[in-house]
C-alpha cells in the first residue's frame, strides 16, 4: 500500500494535479505580492477571483471566444482593483475590513449576475491543453509539464517575470521603496499613491485571471462561490512565500501537491478518516513554515495608509 505511493502513476498524478491546483493561487498570490510589497493588504482577493471567473465564463459563453472572456475578466479585475485602491489609498479605509467588503461584494455580485444572466450551470469550451511539441511526448515530465492549458503556462511564467519586475526595474524599485518607507519615497518625488494604485489594480487583474483560469481553462464551468476560500489561501501564501515570487511559487506548489497527495491517500485506502486527509495541506503548510522559519520581515508600511498631512 505504501509502496503504491512511489508508483509512477501516483507521482505523475500528484505533480500534474498539483500544478493545475497551484495555477489560480499563483495568479492571485503574485498579484497580492505586488500589492503588499507596495504596502497595501487586499483581503478582497476572493471576491475579485469570483468576479473574474464569472465574467470570463459569461463572455466566453456568449461570444464563444475565450480570449474575449479573458479580456473581460481582466477589465473587471482592473475595476475591482481600482475600487479597492481608491478606498484604501484615497479614502484610507482600514484595509482589512475594506477587503472583506470587496470579498462579500464579489461573492454576492458574481452569484447575482450568474442567476440573472445564466440561471443554471453551463459549460463552455475554454482554453484547451496545449501540447508543447516534442516536450509533451517525453515520458513522465511530458504529461506533468507540457500538456497543460495556456493559463497554466502563463501562471508559471509569471513567477520569474514578477521577480524580474520587482528586483530589476525602476518600477520594482519604487514598489519596494513605497512599501518600506513611503515618506522617503515621497520626498524623492515618487508618487506613493500612483504606485499603489498600479499594484493594487494589477492585483485585481491577476486575481481575476486566477478566477478565469478556473472558469474558462481548468474547469470550464461557473458555479456560485466556486473558489470556496481559495482567495484567502492565496493571501496566506504571500506570507508563506515571504513576499517573494519564488517563495510564493514554493508555497503554492507545496499546498497544492499535498492537496492532491491527500486525494491519492484516500484512494489508496490509507487508514485515516477523510476529514484528516483533507486537513493535511493546511497542517503541513504551517509545519513547513515552522521548520523553515527565517527572520523574514514584511514590508514595513504594510496596511499603513500614507498621509502627507500638510
Amino acid at each position, binding site marked *: 500500500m505504501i509502496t503504491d505511493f512511489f508508483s509512477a502513476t501516483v507521482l505523475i498524478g500528484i505533480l500534474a494535479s498539483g500544478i493545475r491546483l497551484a495555477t489560480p493561487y499563483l495568479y492571485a498570490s503574485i498579484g497580492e505580492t505586488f500589492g503588499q510589497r507596495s504596502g497595501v493588504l487586499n483581503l478582497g482577493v476572493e471576491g475579485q477571483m469570483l468576479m473574474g471567473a464569472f465574467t470570463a465564463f459569461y463572455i466566453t459563453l456568449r461570444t464563444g471566444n475565450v480570449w474575449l472572456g479573458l479580456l473581460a475578466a481582466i477589465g473587471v479585475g482592473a475595476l475591482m482593483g481600482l475600487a479597492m485602491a481608491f478606498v484604501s489609498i484615497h479614502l484610507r479605509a482600514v484595509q482589512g475590513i475594506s477587503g472583506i467588503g470587496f470579498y462579500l461584494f464579489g461573492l454576492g455580485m458574481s452569484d447575482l449576475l450568474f442567476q440573472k444572466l445564466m440561471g443554471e450551470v453551463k459549460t463552455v469550451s475554454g482554453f484547451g491543453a496545449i501540447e508543447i511539441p516534442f516536450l509533451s511526448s517525453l515520458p513522465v515530465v511530458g504529461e506533468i509539464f507540457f500538456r497543460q492549458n495556456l493559463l497554466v503556462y502563463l501562471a508559471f511564467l509569471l513567477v520569474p517575470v514578477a521577480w524580474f519586475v520587482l528586483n*530589476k*526595474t525602476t*518600477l520594482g524599485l*519604487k514598489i519596494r*521603496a513605497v512599501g518600506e*518607507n513611503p515618506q522617503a519615497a*515621497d520626498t524623492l*518625488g515618487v508618487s506613493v499613491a500612483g504606485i499603489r494604485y498600479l499594484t493594487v489594480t494589477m492585483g485585481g487583474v491577476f486575481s481575476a485571471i486566477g478566477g478565469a483560469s478556473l472558469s474558462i481553462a481548468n474547469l470550464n464551468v461557473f458555479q456560485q462561490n466556486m473558489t470556496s476560500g481559495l482567495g484567502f489561501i492565496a493571501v496566506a501564501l504571500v506570507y508563506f512565500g515571504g513576499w517573494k515570487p519564488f517563495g510564493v511559487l514554493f508555497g503554492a506548489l507545496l499546498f497544492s501537491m499535498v492537496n492532491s497527495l491527500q486525494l491519492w491517500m484516500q484512494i489508496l485506502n490509507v487508514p485515516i478518516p477523510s476529514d484528516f486527509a483533507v486537513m493535511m495541506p493546511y497542517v503541513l503548510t504551517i509545519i513547513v513554515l515552522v521548520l523553515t522559519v527565517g527572520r523574514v520581515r514584511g514590508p514595513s508600511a504594510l496596511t499603513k495608509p500614507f498621509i502627507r498631512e500638510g
Partner: protein
Amino acid sequence: MSDVQSISFERQRIEHLELKNITKRFPGVLANAHVDFDVRAGEVHALLGENGAGKSTLMKILYGLYHPDEGEIFINGSPVRIASPNDAINLGIGMIHQHFMLVDSLTVAENIALGLPSSRGLLTDLDVVSARTEMLAKKYGLLVDPGAYIWQLAVGQRQRVEILKALYRGADLLILDEPTAVLTPQEVDEFMETIRQMTEEKHSIIFISHKLHEVIAISQRVTVLRNGRRVDSCPTAGCTKHDLARMMVGQEIVMPKLTTPPKRGEVRLELKNVHAQSDRETPALRGVDLQIFSGEIVGLAGVSGNGQAELAQVVTGLRPATQGQVLIEGRDMTGKLPGEIIRCGLAYIPEERMRDGMVQDFNISENIILRDHNKDPYAKRGFLLHRVIAEFTDRLIDLFHIKTPSRETPARNLSGGNIQKVVLARELSRQPRIIVAAQPSRGLDIGATEYVHNSLLEQREKGAAILLISEDLDEILALSDRVAVVYEGRIMGILDNKDAERERVGLLMAGVHPD
C-alpha cells in the same frame, strides 16, 4: 498665481529664493505665522529656534511637503508653486530631513536611484548610479559603499547618503534640517568642509542646527524663529553664541558644568569582560571592563559605532552578553530580562528615543508609567490607578516644563524636545540608583539641553551612578568625573576629569594610546 513659472528640466539656477508671509496652521498649533525668509546663491543662511519653533514646518513648505495656508514662494523674483517634492526637485531644491528618509532594506545606490529616470529605460541602472555616486562622493569627501544596505550603515554614513541623494539630483539649493545632530565631532568637521565646498560652487544652503558654534562657524546670515514667528534676521559676522541664544530664548544661557568633586560611594554598576554582538551579528563589544560608583558621572566617549549603543543595551538587558558579567550593586544581572533590571533601580535614557523610549501613540501619562506600570503606586493587583497616575504626570509636566496641551496628548504630537523631556522626567523621577543616559541632549535646543545637564548633575548629587554616553565631546568633558573612551568594543582608557584634555581623549577615540 497666474504667472507661475513652468517647471522644466532646463530650469534657471536658483540665484535668490524667497519665502514671503508664510503661515501654516496645524490642529491646535500655529506652526508658522507670517514668516519671511530668503537665501542667495553661495550663501549659508542658518535657521534657529527652540524645539517646536516651526523650522521644520517652514522647510517642509519650501520642499512641497506641506502647503502653506498663506504666503508665496519666489525664485529669482518670480512666484513658483511647489505642490509636491517633485516640483521642488525639478526647481533644484534638495532637502536633508531631520529624520532620515532612507529605505533601510535597499542599498545606497538603490536609495539614490529611487525616483530618477534610468539610462536603461524601464530597467534599473544601478551600476551607472554607483559609478556616478562614487565620483560625487570623492569630490565632496563623502565616502560610502554604494552597494551597502542602509541598515548596515552607521548614522554618520547614512547622513552622507542623504547628502549624496540631494547632490545627485543636482540641487542648487540644499535644505539641511539638523544634519549634524547625529554626527560625531569629526564628522561635523568634514561636513562643514562639504558645505563650504558647495557654497563655493554657488549652491544656496539653508542650515538648521541647535549647535550655535556650528551656526557661527558656517553661516553668513541667521534667522531666528520663536513660536512660529520670525524674531529677527542678521548677519552672522559679529554674533556670538550668547547673542544668538538670547535671540532664541529671550535670555542668556550658560551651560552647566561640574563644579563640585564627586561624593563617591560604593560600586553600583560593574562590567567584567563583557562581549556582545551588534545587530549585524558582528562583534560589537570585545571585553569591556568598567566600574561606576555612586555619586559620579562617567562619560563614555567614542566615535559612533564603536560599541556604545550595544554597551547601553547589554547593561539594560535589551541585548544579551555573549560573554562576561554585568553586576548591579554586586548582584550578577547578566542575561536577566529588562524588567528585572528595571526593578534594580536602573534608569535608561535610550539613544533612539522615538523608537525605544516612547510609545508614540500613548499619551503622556501612559508614557510616564512605561517602566513601572505594574508597580506601586501606579497599579494595585493588576489594576491601573488612573488618578494617581494623572496626578503624578501633572507634577512631572510641571516639574520638567513639558510643553503640552494636556497629559492626555499623544506623545507623537509633541515636538522632539518635549518628547525628550517626557523620557527624562520618567527616568529621573524613578529615584534611580543607576542612570544610563545615551545621547541625552541630541536634537534638543539649548534651553532644553541646559535643563538636561542640570538634571543629571542633580542626580549625581543625590548619589546616583551615571553612565553618560555621548558623541558630543563638550558635553562629556563638561559633565564627567571620569571619561572612559571606547574604541572597537574595548575601553581604551579611563581618564580623570582633570586629565581629560580634548586632544588626549581624541587620540584615544581614534584608537591611539597617547603614551
